[in-house]
C-alpha cells in the first residue's frame, strides 16, 4: 500500500498536469490545485511507515546493467522534501486562483506550475541518477517558462539567464554522473551507496557545480535575484521556497547519504554565501530582490548544516529547510499582495500598510521573525541548531560569521517590514484591495511558522526519524 501512495504522489501531478491543457478555465484551477492536494494527501499516508523505519521501494522499468531505471524509493529525507514541495505548491496554486485571475496564458501557467511540482516530487523520490537528472531538468525548463511568463523582452532575457546558469551547472552535474557510471557501471542510488568509487572526488566536484547553480550559492547565485522580480509571485514562492532547495536535496542525497563526503571549504563557502546574500539584501530596494537575496543567505545555513556531515547538523538543516520554505513562501506571496495593492515593488514608495490590513501585517511579520530566528518561531530552533552543530564540530569562526549573518538578516527583514507596513500610508491609487484568499495564504503560512516553533518537539519528529534512518 505505501508503494501505491508513493507512485500516486508522483504520477498524479505528473500525468494530471497535462490535463490542465485540455480543461476549460473554471475547471482548470481546481484541477491543478486538486492534483497537488491529492499528491500531498498521499504523502501524508507515507509518514507513519517512514517513521517506523520502512523504506518504500518501487521498480517499474528496470533492466539489469542499464544506466536507466524508472524506479522510485522513499526514505525520511525524500519524504520531508516531498511533503514541503507539495504543500508549498498547493498553497501557491490556491493563491494563484486569485492572483492570476486576470492574466493571459492561464492554460500554460497551470500546466507548467503543476508539472514543476510533479518534477520536484520526482527529484525527491528518484532512485536512478538519470531519472533524477530528467526530473531536475524538467524543473529547470518549467522554471524557465514561468520566470519568463510575462513575455516582455527583458523578462525573457532574464528567464534565459536563469535557465542558462542553472543549465551550466547541471551539465557539469551530468558529467559527474557519467563519470560515476563509467567507474561503477550503475547509476542506481542503492548500489552506489557506500560502494567504492575510485575517482569520486572529481565526480562529486562536478555534481557540486550543478548543486550550487540550482541552489543559488556563491558564485552561481546571481540569477536568483534577477529572476524573482519578473516572475509571478506564486511562482516566486515555489522557486525560492522549494525549488532552489532541490540542490540541497541533491547535496544531501549524493554527498551525505550516498558517499558520506563533504569538504571543509564547503562550510566556508556556505557561510560566505550567506553573508553576501544578507549584505546585498540590506541594500536592495526592490521587495522581491530583498527576499531573493534572503534566500541566498538562508540557503547557506541549510548547506552549512548538511555539510557538517553530523547527525545534529543534518537534522538542523532539514528543520531549517522546512521552516525556511514555509516562511519564505509566505514572504513572496505577501510581496505579491503588496504589489497588487500598490502597483510597485520599490520600498521607498510603500508604507503604512499595517493600518489598512493589520492581519496581513501580522502574518508577514511572523514570517519575518521566523526567518530572522527569533523565538518562539520555528526559525529560532533551526538557526540555533545549525550554529550549535557548527560549534560542536569546532568550527568556531564559521559559527561566528553565521551569527553575523543572522544579525544582518534581522536588520534587513526589519527594514523590509518597516518599509512596507510602517510609516506614512501611501495612496493605493486605482488598485483594489488584495483578495481575502491571497492574504489568507500569507497569514496561514505565518501561523504555521509560529506553530512549528511552539510544537517544536512534534515538528522534529520526522527529521529525527529521517536522519536516524540515514545513519542506520
Amino acid at each position, binding site marked *: 500500500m505505501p508503494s501505491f501512495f508513493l507512485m500516486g504522489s508522483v504520477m498524479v501531478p505528473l500525468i494530471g498536469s497535462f490535463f490542465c491543457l485540455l480543461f476549460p478555465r473554471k475547471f482548470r484551477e481546481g484541477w491543478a490545485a486538486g492534483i497537488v492536494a491529492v499528491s500531498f494527501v498521499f504523502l501524508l499516508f507515507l509518514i507513519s511507515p517512514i517513521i517506523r523505519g520502512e523504506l518504500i521501494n518501487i521498480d517499474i522499468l528496470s533492466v539489469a546493467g542499464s544506466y536507466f531505471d524508472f524506479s522510485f524509493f522513499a526514505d525520511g529525507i525524500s519524504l520531508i522534501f516531498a511533503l514541503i514541495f507539495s504543500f508549498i505548491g498547493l498553497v501557491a496554486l490556491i493563491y494563484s486562483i486569485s492572483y492570476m485571475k486576470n492574466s493571459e496564458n492561464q492554460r500554460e501557467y497551470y500546466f507548467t506550475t503543476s508539472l514543476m511540482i510533479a518534477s520536484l516530487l520526482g527529484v525527491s523520490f528518484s532512485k536512478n541518477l538519470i531519472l533524477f537528472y530528467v526530473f531536475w531538468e524538467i524543473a529547470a525548463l518549467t522554471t524557465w517558462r514561468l520566470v519568463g511568463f510575462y513575455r516582455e523582452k527583458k523578462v525573457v532575457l532574464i528567464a534565459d539567464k536563469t535557465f542558462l546558469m542553472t543549465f551550466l551547472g547541471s551539465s557539469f552535474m551530468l558529467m559527474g554522473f557519467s563519470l560515476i557510471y563509467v567507474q561503477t557501471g550503475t547509476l542506481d542510488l542503492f548500489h552506489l551507496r557506500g560502494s567504492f568509487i575510485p575517482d569520486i572526488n572529481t565526480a562529486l566536484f562536478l555534481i557540486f557545480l550543478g548543486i550550487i547553480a540550482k541552489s543559488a550559492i556563491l558564485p552561481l547565485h546571481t540569477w536568483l535575484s534577477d529572476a524573482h522580480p519578473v516572475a509571478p509571485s506564486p511562482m516566486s514562492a515555489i522557486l525560492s521556497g522549494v525549488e532552489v532547495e532541490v540542490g540541497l536535496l541533491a547535496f544531501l542525497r549524493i554527498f551525505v547519504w550516498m558517499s558520506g563526503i563533504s569538504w571543509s571549504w564547503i562550510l566556508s563557502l556556505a557561510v560566505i554565501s550567506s553573508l553576501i546574500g544578507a549584505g546585498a539584501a540590506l541594500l536592495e530596494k526592490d521587495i522581491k530582490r530583498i527576499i531573493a537575496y534572503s534566500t541566498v543567505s538562508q540557503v547557506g545555513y541549510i548547506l552549512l548544516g548538511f555539510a557538517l556531515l553530523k547527525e545534529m547538523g543534518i537534522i538542523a538543516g532539514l528543520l531549517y529547510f522546512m521552516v525556511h520554505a514555509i516562511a519564505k513562501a509566505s514572504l513572496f506571496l505577501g510581496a505579491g499582495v503588496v504589489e497588487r495593492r500598490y502597483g510597485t515593488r520599490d520600498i521607498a514608495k510603500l508604507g503604512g500598510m499595517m493600518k489598512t490590513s493589520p492581519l496581513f501585517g501580522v502574518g508577514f511579520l511572523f514570517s519575518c521573525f521566523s526567518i530572522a530566528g527569533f523565538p518562539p518561531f520555528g526559525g529560532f530552533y533551526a538557526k*540555533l541548531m545549525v*550554529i550549535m552543530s557548527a560549534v560542536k564540530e569546532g568550527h568556531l569562526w564559521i559559527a561566528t560569521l553565521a*551569527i553575523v549573518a543572522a544579525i544582518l538578516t534581522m536588520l534587513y527583514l526589519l527594514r523590509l517590514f518597516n518599509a512596507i507596513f510602517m510609516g506614512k500610508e501611501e495612496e493605493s491609487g486605482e488598485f483594489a484591495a488584495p483578495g481575502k484568499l491571497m492574504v489568507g495564504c500569507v497569514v496561514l503560512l505565518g501561523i504555521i511558522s509560529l506553530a512549528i516553533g511552539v510544537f517544536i518537539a512534534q515538528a522534529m519528529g520526522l527529521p529525527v526519524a529521517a536522519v536516524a534512518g540515514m545513519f542506520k
Partner: protein
Amino acid sequence: MNSSILLYPIILPIIGGVLCFLIPARKAKESISIAISLIVFIFAIFIFSSKDIFLSYPWLTFLGIDFALQSYRFSSFILLFACLFSFLISLYSVKFMAENVRLKEYYPYLLLTTSCAAGAALAANLVVFLLFWGALGILLYAFLSLGSYKLSTKGLFIVGAADFALILGVLFFYRLSGSLYMSQGNPLSINSGLAVASFVLLMMGAIAKAGAIPFHSWIPDAADKVPTPVMAFLPASLDKLLGIYLLARICFDFFKLMPNTSLSFLLLLIGSLTIIVAVMMALVQHDLKKLLSYHAISQVGYMVLGIGTGIPLGIAGGVFHMLNNAIYKACLFLGGGSVEHKVKTSDIDRLGGLAKFMPVTFITVLIAAFSISGVPPFNGFFSKWMVYQAVVEAGKLEGGGMWIIWLLAAMFGSALTLASFMKLIHGTFLSTESDEVKEKISGKTLKEAGAPMLFPLIVLAGLCVVFGVFAYQVPLKLFILPSVPEIPSPHLWLGWWEPGLATILIILGIIVGLVIYSLGKIKLGRVSESYVGGEVTSDEMRVSGVDFYDTIRDFVGLRRLYKAAERGALDIYSAMLSFARGASYFLFALDRFVDFVWRGLSWGVLIVGKGFSLAHTGILHTYLAWYLIGLIILLVIFLAGVGG
C-alpha cells in the same frame, strides 16, 4: 509539593494573554490581567517559600535537551519580584491606559512578558533560557511599537543583536563545558581564549538586557514615547531583574570571575562609565520621564560595578542594588506617570507646586528619590554601600590599584544623582505652579490619582523603607545572601552599619529638630516673594529649577560631548547601522562582481559567436581559401611531426 507548579507562572499568563486579546470588552481585559497576575504572584510566593523544585519534560530528545525548569533561591526570588511588578503594573494600568487606543494589544503583551520573564528566570537549561529570553526581545518590540516603529526597530535591533551574541556565547560555553544544563556551583575557570570570548559574549547579552552603556540608547528614546507603565515595567524593573540575574550567574555559576583580572576590569569600566555618562545626561534633561530613564541606565552601572569586582560581597551588593533599583525606579516612573496623567505633561518646566495637590504621590516619589540617591536609611543606600565596600575590598587584593577610580566614579555618580533628583523634586512638586498647573487648579481637576494608581506607589515606597531599615532582617536574609555563594558572614562586613539603629537615630534627630523648630522658630517663619537682585519678581517669572545644571553643559570639554550626545553620535545603534551598511556595501560589491563575471562570460560567448559568423560570408572562393589555409597548416604539423 508537586513540581508542575513551576509551569503555572509560564502557562497561566499565556492563556490570560490570549483571552485578553480575544475578549473585546475593556473591563474584561483589565480584570483578566489583574486576576492572572495576582494568581501568578501567589504561585510565585508558593514557589519561593518551598524548597528547590526541579521539573523536566522530554523535549528535544535527540539533542539531549529537556524542557527543564528549576526553582532555587536565586531564580525564585527573581520570579517573585517579576510577578510582583507585573501585578502592580497591571493594577496601575487600569486607570492610566484606559484611554489608550491600542489597549487591545497592551494587556496581552503585559501578560506574555510576564510569562517569558518567568520562563527565563526558571529555566534550567540554556536552550529553554534562550527561548524565553529571545521571546522577550520580540515582546519588547511589541511594547515599543506602542510608541513608534522607529523606536521599536531600534530597541529590537540592539537587544536582538545582543541576543545573537548571547546565543554564540552560550554555544561557546556549551563547547567548553559539554553541557547545556545551567548548573549551580561548579563554574569553569576562564583560562582560554574561547572562555574569554564566551564570557564577553554572554556578558554582552546580559548587560544589553539590563541597559548598560553602550546598549542603552533605546531607553531614553522610549521614555517620552511609550506609555509610562511600560517604562516602569521593562527598562526600570524587569529588564534589570533578568539582565543582572544573568550577569550574576555568568560571573559565579557559569564562569568564575576572578577579582582584578582583565575581564573584571572590563566590567568595572563599563559600570563606571555607565554611572557617570548616564547621570551627566540625566542632569540636563527637561523631561521627567527622560530624566528618569537616564537614571534607569545610570543605576545599572552600580550593579555591573558590584558584580564586576568579582568578590562575593560585590556580587551580593550588585544583586541587592538590582532589587532595590527595580523597586524605587518603578516607583519613580509610576509616580511620574500619575503626575503626567493628571497634568497631561511630563515636561518639568510646565509642572510645579504639585505637592499640595498630590501629597501621596509626592511622598512616595520623595522616598524613592532619596532611595535612588543613596540617602540613608533607605534601601538604595544600603546596596550602594555594599558596592563601595566591595570595590575597596577588591582594591586590597593583588593588582587592584585602580580601585580608587571606580570608587570615585560611583560616589561622584551618587552625588550627581542626588543633585538631579533635587531638581526633579523641586521642579515637579515644590516650585511655583506653572500655567498648566494653574489652569488645572482653577478647573478643579487637579487631585490625587485614583487608588489603583496609588496602591502600587505606596507598596513600592513602603518596600524602599522596609528594605532599607530592615535590610539585614528582610531582603538580605531572604533574597540576597542565599542567592550568592561563598558570601562571608555578614558580621565581617556589616558590623558597623546598623540600619535599624541608624534609622532610630535619624528619626530621633528629625524629631528633636522638629521640636526645636516648633518651639523656637515656628512663629517667626515667614513667606516672602521670590527675590531677584532687589526687584520684586513679576507673576510671569517663575523658577522651576530645570536649568540649575545647565552650566555643566558649558564646561570646556563637556560641551562637545553633550553636543555629540544630543546629535546621537554616541548612540551604538547608529554606529551598528553604519557598520552593517559598510559591510553590506562590501558584500554587495562582491555579489555584483560575481554577476559581472558571469555577464562577461556571456558577452564573451556572444563575441566569439559573432566572430565566427563573420567568417560565414557565403562566398565559395573565400571558403576555398580557408580550406587551403587549413590544409597547409595540417601539412606543416604532420611534416613537423614526421621530421621530429
